[in-house]
């Protein structure tokens, strides 16, 4: 297992490094970054000069990249024009909100997707299964923001049960419900599908067959034998989903004015606050890589074939 983890760690580091290269290249490739930053209304020449200094913009690319990477490793993502604070600080302030939303959405997607997927598989090709497959399809086909708007229309405007904007102080379920559902909806669909196909595959396997021949009670066959084996690929996907939620969250956060990093991205974009935009992108990429690594390690613990392989 150690070897496995070490290998994954190496890969992750390489990926992280490549990430910075990609972001760096894309920005430089599309023109002078200073120009981009100078599109911020109210940018003064002194600020621009300071920016040039900090990122080394009038020096050869390699030096620039070196400055870029050393800044990042020290946690310095630049200074936001708009808020006049280090990007890192703003980001960290907004991050817990996004995490709260992502976690809620994640729980919804698992809470909906996995049980329905299991039912679909156990009652394959019956009415239950068809309903399940339909829900999965709808989940994948209806974009999150449409769901969000419809929810707002029904629960916010017509019925007036739930607030349509903002987050409220601390943890307030009323505000969290609609955005979390809009977020989780899409992923519930893919969770359902994967759980279903994974369960079906496992249910058709020889060891499940043998368990039945051994006279094991059916619920034990499903819960013990089938479920645990089927969950392995589902777990992997679940982890990925958690991070992918950060994506869709951008739109949901904007619609519900949820003060998270997705909305931060848009604010930065619309006000031409480039350091913020770059910072959010980098951090998002980093998080994905780290979470992937975490999942791989978790996998190593769950599957004895890897755990005991040295």
């Amino acid at each position: 297992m150690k070897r496995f983890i070490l290998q994954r760690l190496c890969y992750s580091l390489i990926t992280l490094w490549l990430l910075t290269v990609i972001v760096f290249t894309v920005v430089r490739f599309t023109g002078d970054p200073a120009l981009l930053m100078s599109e911020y209304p109210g940018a003064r020449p002194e600020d621009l000069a300071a920016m040039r200094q900090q990122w080394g913009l009038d020096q050869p690319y390699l030096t620039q990249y070196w400055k870029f990477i050393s800044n990042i490793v020290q946690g310095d993502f630049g200074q936001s024009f708009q808020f006049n604070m280090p990007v890192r600080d703003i980001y960290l302030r907004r991050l817990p909100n996004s995490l709260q939303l992502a976690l809620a959405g994640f729980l919804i997607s698992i809470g909906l997707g996995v049980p329905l997927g299991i039912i679909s598989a156990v009652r394959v090709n019956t009415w239950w299964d068809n309903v399940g497959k339909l829900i999965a399809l709808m989940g994948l086909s209806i974009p999150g923001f449409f769901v969000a708007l419809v929810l707002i229309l029904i629960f916010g405007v017509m019925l007036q049960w739930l607030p349509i904007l903002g987050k409220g102080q601390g943890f307030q379920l009323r505000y969290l419900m609609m955005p979390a559902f809009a977020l989780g909806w899409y992923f519930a669909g893919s969770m359902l599908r994967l759980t279903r196909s994974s369960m079906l595959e496992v249910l058709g396997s020889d060891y499940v067959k043998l368990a039945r021949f051994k006279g094991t009670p059916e619920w034990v066959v499903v819960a013990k034998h089938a479920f645990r084996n089927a969950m392995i690929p589902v777990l992997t996907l679940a982890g990925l989903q958690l991070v992918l939620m950060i994506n869709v969250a951008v739109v949901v956060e904007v619609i519900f004015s949820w003060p998270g990093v997705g909305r931060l991205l848009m604010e930065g974009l619309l006000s031409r606050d480039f350091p913020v935009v770059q910072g959010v992108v980098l951090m998002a990429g980093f998080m994905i890589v780290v979470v992937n690594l975490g999942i791989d390690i978790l996998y190593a613990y769950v599957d004895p074939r890897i755990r005991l392989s040295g």
Partner: protein
Amino acid sequence: MPTPLLQVDNLRTHFFGFRGQRAVKAVDGVSFHVEAGETLGLVGESGCGKTTTCHSIFRILPPGAEVIGGSVRFAGEDLMQKSPRDMRRIRGRDMAMILQDPMASLNPLFTIFDQVAEPAYFHRGLRRHHLRSRVAELLHMVRIPSPEVRMHEYPHQMSGGMRQRIVGATALAGGPKLIIADEPTTNLDVTIQLQYLNLLKELQRQTGVALIFVTHDLGIVAKMCDRVAVMYAGKIVEQGSVRTLYNHPQHPYTEGLIKSVPRIGSKADLYAIPGQPPDLANLPPGCAFAPRCPEALALCCRDEPEEIALADGHTSRCWLPVQEGIDG
């Protein structure tokens, strides 16, 4: 004559496809019996219905398959009449199954102990150290070295031969009277096969369990079995004691099978039964083997032969003995 342990009468299992339109007669009127403690070989080509017959006895069939007729009497009671609950109790406790692929039969996420213990846990109610010692005893019986240690390991840490022996231990865990082994040696190396067969025979001697051994290998049948039933296209075409069948095969299919076993040291051409196995969804009228039979009569292509009783428990589903009887 004492009641046989297992008595199968006119068992019929069909597969229904295309929304009930097409029926594949996988098992079409199969009858045989197994006495306590004896070994019956079930022989035939792939697709002849041996596996479906075994699954039907356990009443665990894939979707689309249904037992539509016949009875299976186990220890005097008809399994076809049993409730699902009673069936579940019988499975594992009174009857057990061994599948072909040992790697696929064992769940990779659970320990050996966990899997072998299951029947003992659910059917015999053993717990804790009784359970542990029972599992150790079983593993010892199947010749797994240091069972107390190895039972906490995982399937992927075992060799192929060991896994199949563990599957055997699992089958014995509930204390069954009958074990059905569906081609248990096909996936094993040839050298391991012999070891395994010897082990099976030894276990049978120790526990007195009856065995149905499904295989396509006549050599194994000769070694392991007391009696043998030959299946073709969903029907049993000949059955009897191993000695009788091998020395005086009656049905042309059996003859062909025996002839196709290559003889060591002989340089003669290899014999293969001409033709192809039939499409079970579109069987020709009359005897299913007629198209390939070197001794087919005109009658064979018209009417399905019935089971003719020859001497001493030897039966054959063929018109030839009738014809010979007439000719004298």
